[in-house]
């Protein structure tokens, strides 16, 4: 045990004396979160919209007024027919069109249901998504006002249609996404680099010709990064909550435990990489190309998996990040408990065991 602790202490010396990797370690999560956060901003103000009111009754006028009165929207013009909608978008000076169906009030009173179509210009998908959210919530609050003291609930169905980019998903994606990238990168890249560095330096030879077992060397390399990655995860969640007002719907402890699991998965991957390559440079290349790209492209972070071609959907299943993003989103956004995430958690555990077993098998007790 003393041997092992001595080894871990040495690892911490390496980490804290290398200013560059320290910067990557702690600077990158902050930079990425801020970058993604401000690039995908969901603040909207005085957005110009158009209204097509085919009903012209009390309800539709009240809703229109309510929307116009909010600080978020300004009604730029009123349209007279559906034909004008496309023309209005093409002009480019409006971001959304609100289309009330014919006889809206009548439907609402007689059938208890009225339909409003919200069309948004989703060439800027994040703004589009925010606009629909805001309009929907304004309509909902109007509906609540109306329903007070009324026997039968009126239900207004805002039918959202996004033109140009129909598959758009939530904007809060970025916090779980960045967290996944950072944890993967720090854990896998840093461990694989730190092990290959010993190979390059020649110190691996001395470690091999010492009583330290391969298990001790591997675990000794991993322990410091578990700590550091946990700190990173905490920084990201903290920034998400404070800077971007990200709601954490679920249990923080569960999120923490799942993060530790994913950190260990990534570390195991890092070790696996380092058993296969000899130089720091290749370790870095493989970590970046082989891990980062799939994490960004195939995990559902940026491109929704459901809209990928079927072969890629199948491939995305072997990307550990996909499962962790699902878990993180589930806990952070939906507030679900372990019961709903059992499948994902078990898959991650399975992957971790597989990677560890493979690395132990591949880790050589000799050179070559």
């Amino acid at each position, binding site marked *: 045990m003393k041997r092992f602790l001595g080894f871990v*202490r040495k690892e911490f010396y390496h980490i804290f004396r290398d200013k560059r990797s320290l910067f990557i370690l702690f600077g990158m999560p902050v930079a990425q979160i801020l970058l993604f956060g401000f690039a995908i901003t969901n603040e909207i103000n005085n957005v110009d919209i158009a209204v097509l009111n085919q009903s012209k009754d009390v309800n539709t006028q009240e809703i229109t007024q309510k929307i116009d009165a909010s600080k978020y929207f300004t009604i730029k013009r009123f349209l007279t027919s559906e034909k004008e909608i496309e023309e209005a978008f093409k002009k480019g000076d409006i971001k959304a069109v609100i289309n009330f169906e014919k006889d809206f009030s009548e439907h609402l009173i007689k059938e208890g249901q009225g339909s409003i179509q919200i069309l948004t210009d989703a060439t800027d998908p994040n703004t589009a998504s925010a606009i629909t959210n805001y309009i929907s919530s304004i309509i909902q609050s109007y509906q609540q006002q109306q329903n007070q003291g009324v026997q039968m609930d009126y239900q207004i169905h805002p039918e959202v249609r996004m033109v140009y980019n129909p598959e758009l998903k939530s904007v809060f994606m970025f916090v779980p996404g960045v967290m996944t990238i950072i944890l993967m990168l720090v854990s896998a890249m840093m461990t694989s680099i730190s092990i290959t560095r010993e190979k390059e330096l020649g110190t691996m030879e001395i470690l*091999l010709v010492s009583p330290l077992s391969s298990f001790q060397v591997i675990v000794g390399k991993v322990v410091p990064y578990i700590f550091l990655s946990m700190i990173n995860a905490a920084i990201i969640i903290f920034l998400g909550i404070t800077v971007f007002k990200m709601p954490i719907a679920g249990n923080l402890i569960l999120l923490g435990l799942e993060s530790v699991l994913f950190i260990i998965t990534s570390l195991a991957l890092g070790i696996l990489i380092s058993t296969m390559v000899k130089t720091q440079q290749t370790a870095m290349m493989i970590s970046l190309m082989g891990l980062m790209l799939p994490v960004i492209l195939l995990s559902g972070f940026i491109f929704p998996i459901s809209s990928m071609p079927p072969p890629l959907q199948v491939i995305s299943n072997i990307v550990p990040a996909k499962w962790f993003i699902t878990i993180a989103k589930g806990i952070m956004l939906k507030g679900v408990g372990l019961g709903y995430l059992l499948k994902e958690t078990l898959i991650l555990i399975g992957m971790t065991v597989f990677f560890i077993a493979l690395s132990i098998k591949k880790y050589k007790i000799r*050179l070559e």
Partner: protein
Amino acid sequence: MGILVENISKSYKNVAAVKDISFEVKPGELYGLIGPDGAGKTTLFRILTTLLVADKGQAKVAGYDVVQDYKNIRHSVGYMPGRFSLYQDLTIEENLNFFATIFGTSIEENYDLIKDVYEQIEPFKNRRAGKLSGGMKQKLALSCALIHKPKVLFLDEPTTGVDPVSRKEFWEMLKRLQQKDITILVSTPYMDEAALCDRIALIQEGKILEIDSPEAIVKKIPKKIYDIYASNMYGLLTALKDFEHAHSVFPFGEFVHYTDKREGFDSNELKIYLENKNLQDVSISLTEPDIEDVFMELSRK
């Protein structure tokens, strides 16, 4: 508790690095493997330190088989690889402490053994290893290899790239370590260091050319060697190479070492020949061969 090597061979892909090598190092001996880069020294060291498995043959270190008992060997040998293999970002003291800890010992416990070496660098113990001079790095590496009181010490080219002063000090330290019952196998490309070993094996292209004590090995050269001097070195070399009876012509310091093909050699004849080639201050005298002469003579075959 020495080293026993029997018919060891090792190839990388199709290149044979070590070809059927056998030798024995007695307990407490200071044994030198002398040969140029690419002779197979490092491969042999890696086989003996359990880092590589030989294709053929057997070897024992401190009584343990290098393949089956590799764990025991890893507890009882010290190894200093060819390159400077310490943590550059750790200080002298941290490096030494680290190696003491992983071998389950402490600096204090074996201070006696490393004192001689470590004392010379102890004043700088808080300096990072990356900022040390070549000689100091070498002493630190030796201290780290010694810290767990190994029975056998493997030093792979410890003096390569190190200046003559540090080299001399290093060999003096090895001589003193030998007194403390440590078997030492050391490799070097510097032939002049061979004279400081108890016994040496001359090695080239994966094969051992000769094994003996340095004193005995130089007597094995069958030819008489002559020191030849002339004021113009390049002229002398070309003239000697053109001489029909020349067996070998090698520059050696300010002289040329010359051997003749014939049994009866008359130095006057050569002197006249050289003077006819317009060489000045020609002198020819018989000299004692050194290990480099032996190495070159043997590797010609």
